């Protein structure tokens, strides 16, 4: 059994690490498809990547129900680490989650299992954090939307392969929808609900 003393560490400097991580996430969200780096590093429990851990320490707290997929909840270490460092409640029902951590995107549940928000409060939706194979190699995807000057090309190896096809529901649902943050190691790419697929994927 893991005791608290054996848990991987959080940020060394909570305040400034959270600030720089947030700015990376904010820039990613404001410029969909662009790769942002997370400089501040913390310990990583089990299969959690460095970027995911930093985002969790930056954005999660007792106000954010967090849902973990099968890979993330394979052992209790990640839930324990999250609970200790962020006090975020871990929920089994993905439809009430503020954030969903997905370590095995291949078996990502159908998107309608997550919260889309309501037409009155579209902000009450789940932010998906997907750990992917690569954000530099793989098939190319051309995207457009707010935050993008014309179009942007994302070269990434993403599971599930039909992620962008699944995200097409964002167009019909808008302003409701799902915002996605793709993480590989310390690199992140955000795909907010306004981003549309031009080609590829």
């Amino acid at each position, binding site marked *: 059994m893991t005791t608290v003393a054996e848990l991987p560490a959080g940020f060394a400097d*909570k*305040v*400034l690490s*959270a*600030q*720089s991580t*947030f*700015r990376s*996430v*904010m820039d990613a*969200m*404001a*410029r969909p498809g662009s790769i942002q780096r997370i400089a501040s590093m913390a310990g990583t429990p089990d299969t959690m990547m460095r970027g995911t851990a930093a985002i969790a320490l*930056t*954005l*999660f*707290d007792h*106000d*954010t129900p967090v849902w973990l997929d099968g890979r993330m909840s394979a052992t209790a270490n990640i839930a324990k680490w999250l609970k200790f460092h962020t006090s975020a409640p871990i929920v089994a029902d993905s439809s009430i989650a*503020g954030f969903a951590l997905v370590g095995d995107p291949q078996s990502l549940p159908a998107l309608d299992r997550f919260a889309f928000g*309501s*037409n*009155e*409060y*579209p*902000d009450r*939706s789940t*932010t998906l954090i997907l750990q992917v194979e690569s954000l530099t190699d793989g098939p190319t995807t051309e995207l457009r939307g*707010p*935050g*993008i*000057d*014309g179009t942007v090309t994302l070269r990434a190896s993403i599971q599930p392969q039909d992620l962008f096809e699944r995200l097409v529901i964002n167009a019909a649902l*808008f*302003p409701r*929808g799902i*915002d996605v943050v793709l993480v590989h190691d310390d690199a992140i790419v955000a795909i*907010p*609900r*306004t981003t549309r697929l031009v080609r590829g994927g």
Partner: protein
Amino acid sequence: MNAPAYNFAYLDEQTKRMIRRAILKAIAIPGYQVPFASREMPMPYGWGTGGVQVTAAILGPDDVLKVIDQGSDDTTNAISIRKFFGKTAGVATTTATADATVIQTRHRIPEAPLHAGQVLVYQVPIPEPLRFLEPRETETRRMHALGEYGLMHVKLYEDIARFGHIATSYAYPVKVNARYVMDPSPTPKFDNPKMDNCPALQLFGAGREKRIYAIPPHTDVVSLDFEDHPFTRYRFDAPCALCGAGDSYLDEIVTDDKGGRMFVCSDTDYCESRQQAGHRGSESAAPHKERAHG
């Protein structure tokens, strides 16, 4: 025992996390007003408590902060907020628009074009563009949900019926990304076109009304109008009396009690940098006099 008891940039970490989450959702849903748990700040409502909270949540030690009030870096509000963050976050401050990474503004957008990587933070008094037309929050929220903005067009039409043109001159409503009608805060409508396809990120904070909203970079922002009454900018038909600029937004300054007046740039940084570049207006001090004593 007078050691400063404040966190970096004044706000506690839990508050920053809450504001940061609201900012992310605001960026993901351009023009939608995200409710947030606004805190009491050590300044009164109306002095930019919303903008200050947004700035405090995004500011880092490497940022360079500029604060303007009606375009001016030198007014009480601008100076006190600049000093506030100089003291609580230790950030570098500047008055030069191009050098700043974060610009907090009250009621103006700088004349110098903004560039990618900059964040413009607006102080917003009334974030709801429909509030003066429909006082009930439940109703305005439903109107936004349905994208039902007929009331706003009726208001602009009534302007035309009464005055012959759209008389709204500031807080001129815009439509963001062809979906949400948004209040650009009480900026003069002269500034509205600068919001469209702007390379910088624009964040809006309303402290008393507890709302945060955003326009991502390169987003369509359209001022509402009619085919036969298209949107027009307005500026006083005069050059700046200090720098001679013919393209900047002007303040009217009364100079005596006999009807004397002059027009000067509202953006002090723009005006000063033009003067430094040698531009002169009708009221400029003669340059040779200044040099004689220098």
